[in-house]
């Protein structure tokens, strides 16, 4: 149900601009909407981060994934159990660039004979998630050619690497195929893996389908209708240079559909789980070093008025018995 509604929503985001442009609303979808989307994305993203950052981290609670640093002759794991900023930096690099925690993933198998509970390494989620995220990044970088003149060198490199297989004309980018594979895997997991289906909500299907929509319209534009790239660039440059105008040459409606989906993604981003992109950098179990036994970690709302049940009160309670048992007391009875 949730998947179906998400699908309808994405479909609507394709059909509406497609028809709308036909009715002469090109400027609305080509200029107004992108500005709105960019503003909402930037303001929304910042506000979310600020909102998180406003809550303090009262305790130092890293999840330690390796040996602590204690005695000099015991080898510690500085990246899985960092004790300083350098270690945390490495932990985060591994986490963000290599999905370290997901790499650990296992799956449980239960055998009735024995009985035996077995754990096997399960890397498919890690692999496809990694493929998806890296392709997304690469495609993003490739798209910079529409927003920059002259096109910067790194963008050329990205394009070169991405088209190294030289399939067809226009050159086929591997990332287009791979990102689709990644997205479809993630989607299939949600639909066919009972556990994941059980926990999936509309806000899990929607961004996946939205991205599928973006990729499919993108592929359609590039390989099927082969849109007028010069005109698209003119439109894009107009937006970034703050001199928005509609290009004279006509642009295929699929471009508007693609653009609208992208805008929808930008608008949706700050209000959704996609914020994990920013949140991971603030997650206290990952970004705090395991140092609170070495040095002071300060809790801003620590309440100094909370005192233990005092020794004096304790002794008052038990003095006679303590004396009888031969235990020392501070005050004689």
């Amino acid at each position: 149900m949730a998947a179906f509604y998400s699908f309808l929503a994405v479909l609507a985001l394709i059909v509406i601009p497609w028809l709308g442009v036909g009715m002469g609303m090109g400027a609305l979808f080509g200029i107004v909407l992108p500005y709105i989307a960019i503003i909402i994305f930037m303001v929304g993203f910042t506000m979310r981060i600020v909102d998180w950052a406003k809550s303090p981290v009262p305790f130092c609670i890293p999840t330690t994934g390796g040996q602590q640093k204690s005695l000099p002759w015991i080898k510690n794991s500085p990246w899985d159990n960092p004790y300083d900023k350098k270690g945390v930096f490495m932990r985060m690099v591994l986490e963000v660039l290599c999905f370290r925690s997901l790499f650990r993933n296992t799956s449980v198998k239960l055998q009735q004979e024995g009985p035996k509970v077995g754990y096997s390494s399960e890397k498919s989620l890690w692999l496809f998630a990694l493929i998806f995220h890296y392709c997304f990044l690469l495609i993003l970088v490739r798209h910079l050619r529409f927003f920059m003149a002259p096109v910067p060198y790194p963008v050329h490199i990205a394009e070169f690497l991405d088209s190294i297989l030289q399939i067809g004309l226009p050159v086929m980018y591997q990332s287009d195929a791979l990102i689709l594979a990644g997205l479809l895997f993630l989607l299939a997991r949600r639909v066919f893996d009972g556990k994941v289906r059980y926990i999936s909500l509309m806000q899990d299907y929607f961004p996946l389908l939205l991205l599928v929509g973006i990729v499919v319209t993108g592929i359609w534009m590039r390989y099927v209708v082969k849109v007028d790239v010069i005109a698209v660039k003119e439109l894009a440059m107009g937006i970034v240079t703050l001199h928005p105008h509609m290009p004279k040459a006509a642009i295929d409606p699929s471009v508007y559909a693609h653009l609208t989906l992208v805008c929808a993604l930008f608008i949706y981003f700050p209000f959704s789980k996609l914020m994990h992109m920013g949140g991971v950098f603030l997650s206290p179990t990952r970004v705090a070093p395991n140092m609170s036994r070495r040095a002071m970690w300060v809790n801003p709302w620590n309440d100094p008025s909370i005192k233990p049940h005092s020794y004096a009160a304790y002794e008052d309670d038990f003095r006679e018995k303590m004396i009888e048992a031969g235990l020392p007391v501070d005050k004689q009875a």
Partner: protein
Amino acid sequence: MAKYPPPEELIKINYTTPVKSWMDTKTAFKPGNFSYPGKPDILKYLGMPNPREWTPTDDDWKLPPDWQRIVMEKFRSLLKKYRSFKIFMDICVRCGACADKCHFFIGGGDPKNMPVLRAELLRSIYRGEFSAAAKVLGKLAGARKLEEDVIKEWFLYFYQCTECRRCSLFCPYGIDTAEITMMARELLHEVGCNINWILEPAANCNRTGNHLGIQPHAYKDMMDFLCDDIEEITGKRIRPNVNKKGCEILFITPSGDIFADPGIYTYMGYLILFEHLGLDVTWSTYASEGGNFGLFTSDKMMKKLNAKMYAEAERLGAKWILGGECGHMWRVINQYMSTMNGPADFLETPVSPITGTKFDAAAGTKMLHIAEFTADLIKHGKLNLDPSRNDNFKTTFHDSCNPARGMGLFEEPRYVLKNVCRYFYEMPENTIREQTFCCGGGAGLNNEEFTETRLRGGLPRGNAVKYVRDRHGVNNLACVCAIDRATLPPLCDYWAPGVGVSGLHELVGNAIILDGEKKRTTDLRQNPLPGMEDEEE
């Protein structure tokens, strides 16, 4: 003994998920799947809200009239106090990587025990109250209203989480369901829904200094009794200091170890170690509890109970504190103590008086783990050991959740173990160290009425023990946690019969050769030593 099904039946676990949405499945309380609620007089003593007589199987839970407002207010204040809470509410992508990492899910198959869904129980209310879009979309967007059934569901599932943090290790964003459970328990306290097995020890600890409510003279008696046993075994009389001022070191360990088998043997191990070293150390009856059930209650309670350690060290004029074998006690010491009750400037960074090693790892809290202390002694050759005395034990090692994932204490106990025992075998890789499985009874859930669920949750651990038993003939599971020493014996009896449980320092105590001791014929349990089976006492 509570009634529960035999292993053959319990193992028939179904991991498939229902077709119906989880929001439509009603929470079912059955004997064995919940713990008894907090008694009214205990709640009153602790000054906690809504003390009353009730049981979870009642229809009416007698919540206060404006309970919804109370819960939501607390929710808001917790979001303001903890970034962890806010972030964990917001960024879960429901990837499911954590789903089959929880021992309660593995051993029970109830989908609401998947960490992600446990968190969703709370998140659904968060969305329903704080997100306009989710409110409109309702169930499709995982949002719902706060109703009495939700409170019942929270009570069941947040008291079916042992705060072991295994899920957080595997989560790509480090979402820690243990942290979420702590928040949920704080919400439940506001309307008086909590369990007695946590609150009574907390109340006891406050007054008598330990969970079991042992009064000072009784504590001293039990200590003398254990010293009698040591004298019988070794021929040496130990006279430990208690509440003595001016000693260099204050020693604090969980009270479970003075009271119950097999913890008492670990306690004897400490006594023998200190005697062997001639350590200038005192025990305390006022701070006679290392464990801290406040961790399972609220940050306030945790701070209040923990504060005794520093208060007593200051009163006695100790230089630093040595801590015994305990799991959650060490999570508190490592991650909370100095923040809550420090800085303890009246203490010094621990230095071993025997080897001169300065323990920088404890420079802030001034409190040292006994496994670190003993490992350093062995490394410097300061202990006179005869590991062959432990030859009857083929041992493996259980990493307790808290020192594992809340500290990273892996090598120290293993180093000690390998030096005091000659037969040591590791359990499978995915069940030890940072991936270790819970004993099923952490976070205050080691009570009798909960046994069935504990045994289910104990399946992954129990099965790993069985594996090394069958493969290497392992007959002993060593651990550094007092709760483990209480929960693992029934667990082993159930899933891996024939395997016993011991503390690390019990084995140390067996191996240490005291100056001038008589020829030992038995170990600390008074079982014959290897080759001494025929020896007359």
